[in-house]
């Protein structure tokens, strides 16, 4: 491959590729994975936490899941500092829409708007692309529950189930086999945990290595974004038979 054409983000290679964008996707391929599954009564996002030191203070904030607005949340895979910029951009875009139209921003429009920002970094400015892939989960009154995946090129697609980050191809093929169209939210959680446990590199799966978040409609009909507590997550791992017992000495 022509290394002469890598240094500038904004030009094509002779084969018609954008190398910087592809290198960004390489960077994401080494990051912690995230899986999103769309069910008929909600969207489930599960993420693998790469940094799990006992010294890390993780009281309330999450590493992989972020709320963008009351009705939209996202899971991140890639360079965290790049992700923080984009998440902030997405939050401001959502509020700007609400300010102008006095209603929540439709999920696809939010994803599109953020992807337009990402695309800008592949065409002008001479700056490198963002090394982040997102899984957006949300609800709006036009299309109900939705799941979108976006990558550094600014491409996005609506998915029924998607995976980003390390081993995402293996996860994606597993999801393709086991996903059913009328899956319920609980079954989606089970499927996501099962797939993630199979694709994660670690030998034993504990609730400290995972994050689980769901978007669903509460009993009063309002959209709710909820991150699972580590205790509940631990119980779920045992219930679904996903926790591997620690190896005997």
């Amino acid at each position: 491959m022509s290394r002469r054409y890598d240094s500038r983000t904004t030009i094509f290679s002779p084969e018609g590729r954008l190398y910087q964008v592809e290198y960004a996707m390489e960077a994401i391929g080494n990051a912690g994975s995230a899986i999103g599954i769309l069910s008929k009564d909600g969207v489930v996002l599960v993420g693998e936490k790469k940094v799990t030191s006992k010294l890390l203070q993780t009281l309330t904030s999450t590493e992989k899941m972020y709320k963008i607005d009351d009705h939209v949340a996202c899971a991140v895979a890639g360079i965290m500092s790049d992700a923080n910029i984009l998440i902030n951009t997405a939050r401001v875009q959502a509020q700007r829409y609400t300010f102008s139209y006095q209603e929540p921003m439709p999920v696809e429009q939010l994803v599109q708007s953020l992807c337009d920002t990402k695309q800008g970094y592949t065409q002008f400015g001479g700056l490198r692309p963002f090394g982040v892939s997102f899984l957006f989960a949300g609800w709006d009154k036009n299309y109900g529950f939705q799941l979108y995946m976006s990558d550094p090129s600014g491409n996005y697609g609506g998915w029924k189930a998607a995976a980003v980050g390390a081993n995402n191809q293996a996860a994606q093929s597993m999801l393709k086999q086991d996903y059913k169209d009328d899956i319920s939210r609980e079954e989606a959680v089970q499927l996501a945990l099962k797939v993630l446990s199979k694709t994660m590199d670690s030998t034993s799966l504990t609730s400290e290595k995972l994050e689980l978040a769901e978007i669903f409609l509460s009993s009063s009909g309002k959209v709710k974004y909820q991150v699972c507590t580590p205790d509940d997550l631990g119980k779920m791992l045992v219930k679904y038979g996903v926790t591997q017992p620690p190896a005997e000495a």
Partner: protein
Amino acid sequence: MSIFEYNGSALVAMVGKNCFAIASDRRLGVQLQTIATDFQRIFKIHDKLFLGLSGLGSDTQTLYQRLVFRHKLYQLREERDMKPETFASLVSAMLYEKRFGPYFCQPVIAGLGEDDKPFICTMDSIGAKELAKDFVVAGTASESLYGACESMFKPDMDHEELFETISQALISSVDRDCLSGWGGHVYVVTPTEVTERILKGRMD
């Protein structure tokens, strides 16, 4: 007629024992003609923070929408609700930004701060804060409200008595003001619940 008196408004907030109450009138007029009798002047920012906006209706709505914008972003970034004192500073800063083309509003902020301590304040249209320990008033009926509150208020009222007091103060004051009235809207907030009540007054 002054631009602040174009739509007509009356707002009052009072502090009680571990609770607060905020009340407004419901009239929206265009000078002397009444247009609406269910106009919302008090807005909830979060469960323990309420904002009342008196003055020009259009400016109050826009200012409220801009504050929702800022507060939502704050909530997302800080992962917590804004304290009332902080919110008051935000409102003050936003109003002063428009020092030479101001919003024609007078806000009344009421909330439960740290340890659920009641906090109330008001400010003028360019953000000069006025903190008070007992009550704050705003709107075209403010002069009558000052008198009514001064005589009816006593410290450390419980939420029932506070509701009665603030309602009486509001109704008696708007009755003396032709630009405000057509009922009242009262919120009484304690650390555990928020009670919203509509008052029936002289419908004129």
